[in-house]
């Protein structure tokens, strides 16, 4: 008994030595963002000794909103620059949500800035709010770089409209994506009027330098991580489709071969954005998780046919060139802080869980996988999972609807009954948003602290 205990402890220590939890840099990054916002407001404060009247207040509100919009615009672009610290440490899903949130906020600031500034100018010229349109036309015609800024603002409005939930769902993904790429043009076009007409930049050379630095740095990061890094990756690894395998009805695995694929730095739980250079597919890239730990000559993704793109995957022929960008995603072993891990997969969310199930370090009994699907036929990769479970001494459970179509009850009580020490686990979770939400609540009810529930959700 003692020996077993000692052996158990030694094994546990062995495992823990390989667990190096890394904190997400989200908090320091957010602090830096706020500090920058304070600096921008200070710039305004410093350059504005007094405000005489309501016209002055309106114009200064226009300046504040303009300065903040100019600052945030750079950050909104930065969030999509695929910077590894953001994609792999904070998590692509979280950064994408930040991007959507700050994008909406920035667009609101831009609209407020235009309205307030033009209203202020109209008042200054002794005109009423009704003359704001004429005032805007005059300003665009007369002030430097305002023509460009007007076009850029128009683009921002179009981009914003195309991203409104209802409209975006009706647009094909590619159309939405390519409209969204116009953001770069819009940022470029609106940049110049900030420098040439912005009071704070005209009078404060340091502020101008800071602004050039901010936008220059973001541009450099975008060029480096969105253009040069993918080119280098694909030139080095030269990926091609090796085979397409149907796992279950509607779920296919694509095997991708290439050179030195283990050198890509991909970890279990991460994903790449894949672009298959086949007719009709080459113009869009889609994020799919690796469904197995990367091997030297082989990567595998497993995809459920839900959209145009994923449906076409089954028609891929071996030899098709693949253009991949990545690896991205923070749902990896680095999130883990405990010896015991519960993996929860909903439907095709099994893909990253399958890779983690195989690779997470742990002694027998440390790793548990709970797999939820509609029917037993929908349990893709089940045979592999059983083999892994057998080999590692890991636990594998599934939950499917009853023959009458009744949904299984994943509640706090049931989770506690199945995994008695659940509150001492790290939980990794991947699945459709509704599923993830209800499991999250059940887990919290079962006593798992929020900081140990790791999930990735791409719904915004």
């Amino acid at each position, binding site marked *: 008994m003692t020996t077993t205990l000692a052996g158990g402890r030694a094994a546990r220590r062995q495992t823990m030595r390989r667990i190096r939890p890394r904190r997400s840099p989200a908090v320091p990054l957010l602090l830096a963002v706020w500090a920058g916002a304070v600096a921008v407001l200070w710039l305004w404060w410093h350059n504005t000794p007094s405000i005489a009247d309501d016209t*002055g207040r309106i114009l200064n*509100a226009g300046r504040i909103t303009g300065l903040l919009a100019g600052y945030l615009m750079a950050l909104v672009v930065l969030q999509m620059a695929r910077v590894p610290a953001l994609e792999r440490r904070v998590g692509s899903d979280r950064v994408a949500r930040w991007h959507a949130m700050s994008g909406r906020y920035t667009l609101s600031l831009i609209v407020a800035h235009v309205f307030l500034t033009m209203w202020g100018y109209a008042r200054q*010229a002794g005109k009423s709010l009704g003359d704001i349109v004429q005032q805007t036309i005059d300003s665009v015609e007369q002030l430097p770089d305002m023509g460009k800024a007007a076009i850029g603002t128009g683009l921002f409005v179009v981009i914003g409209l195309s991203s409104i939930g209802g409209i975006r769902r009706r647009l094909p993904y590619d159309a939405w994506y390519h409209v969204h790429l116009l953001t770069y043009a819009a940022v470029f076009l609106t940049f110049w009027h900030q420098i040439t007409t912005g009071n704070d930049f005209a009078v404060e050379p340091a502020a101008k330098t800071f602004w050039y630095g901010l936008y220059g740095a973001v541009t450099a990061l975008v060029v480096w991580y969105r253009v040069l890094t993918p080119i280098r990756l694909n030139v080095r690894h030269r990926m091609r489709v090796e085979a397409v395998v149907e796992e279950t009805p509607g779920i296919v695995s694509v095997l991708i071969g290439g050179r030195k694929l283990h050198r890509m730095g991909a970890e279990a739980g991460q994903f790449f954005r894949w672009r298959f250079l086949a007719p009709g597919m080459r113009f869009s890239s889609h994020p799919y998780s690796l469904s197995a730990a990367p091997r030297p000559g082989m990567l595998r993704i497993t995809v459920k046919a839900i959209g145009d793109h994923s449906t076409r995957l089954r028609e891929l022929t071996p030899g098709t060139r693949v253009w991949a960008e990545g690896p991205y995603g923070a749902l990896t072993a680095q999130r883990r802080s405990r010896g015991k891990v519960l993996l929860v997969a909903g439907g095709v969310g099994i893909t990253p869980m399958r890779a983690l199930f195989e690779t997470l370090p742990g002694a027998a009994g440390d790793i548990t996988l709970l797999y939820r699907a509609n029917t037993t036929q929908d349990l893709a990769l089940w045979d592999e999972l059983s083999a892994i479970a057998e080999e590692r001494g890991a636990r594998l459970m599934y939950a499917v609807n009853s023959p009458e179509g009744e949904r299984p009850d994943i509640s706090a009580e049931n989770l506690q009954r199945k995994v008695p020490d659940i509150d001492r686990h790290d939980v990794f979770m991947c699945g459709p948003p509704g599923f*993830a939400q209800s499991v999250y609540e059940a887990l919290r009810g079962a006593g798992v602290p929020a900081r140990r529930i790791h999930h990735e*959700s791409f719904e915004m």
Partner: protein
Amino acid sequence: MRKSHPVRRVVLATAATVSGVVLLLSLKPASDPAAASAAGAAPPVSAAGQESPQGGARAGSGTVTGDAEQTQYGAVQVRLTVSAGKITKAEAVQAPKGGLSDQKTQLAVPRLNQAAVAAQSARIDTVSGATYTSDGYKKSLQSALDKMKPAASGSAGSASGSSGSASGPAGSAQARTVTGQAAQTQYGPVQVRITVSAGKITKAEAVQAPKGGLSDQKTQLAIPKLNQAAVAAGSADIDAVSGATYTSTGYRQSLQSALDQAGG
């Protein structure tokens, strides 16, 4: 996976932003308190606004105006103020206007003016980003310098004469006021009146300043600061107020002319 409340988030973000902006705006005083206290009980600008400018006499200096030089963006014309054969002031009476030109003019002309006074010749550096304006300026400056030679002796004479008259109650410590020439700026004239006591500026005020529209704001912003700076510096060597370059330049010109008259 905390529950997201989109509507609540939008309401919160809007409320926070609006109240933040309103708070910032309301924390700003209606007029610059530091400048107001430093300038002492300076009478409001409008009270002395109708005082007649003493521009006619050109006391203490002669002026030479160069030819207007056409550039791609408009004419440039330089006027020099000469005292004892030296350029004491250079200014552009014409410079490109409208759109981007306003800005380039604003950027380049003060520097060119300064360079002309420093170099005492037309061999001055081009201001980068304002090449055309600089070239036109240099040509007009050269033509003014060419005209200066015949004009110099006369103006130098008048300079000494008038400086004598200006310091009429010589040596007295009594405070007196001197009003500078009105300096034209793009937005209207600026005219400075200083109170001098024992050879020191004890008070500076603007009897004329640009009015209307944006100018009101800039005047309100700049003049108290400039008044304060003039008293502190005791000379026309004061910094331009950021955001009110034209007014500042005009102010300095008028202040210089007041100082010339005061014999300081």
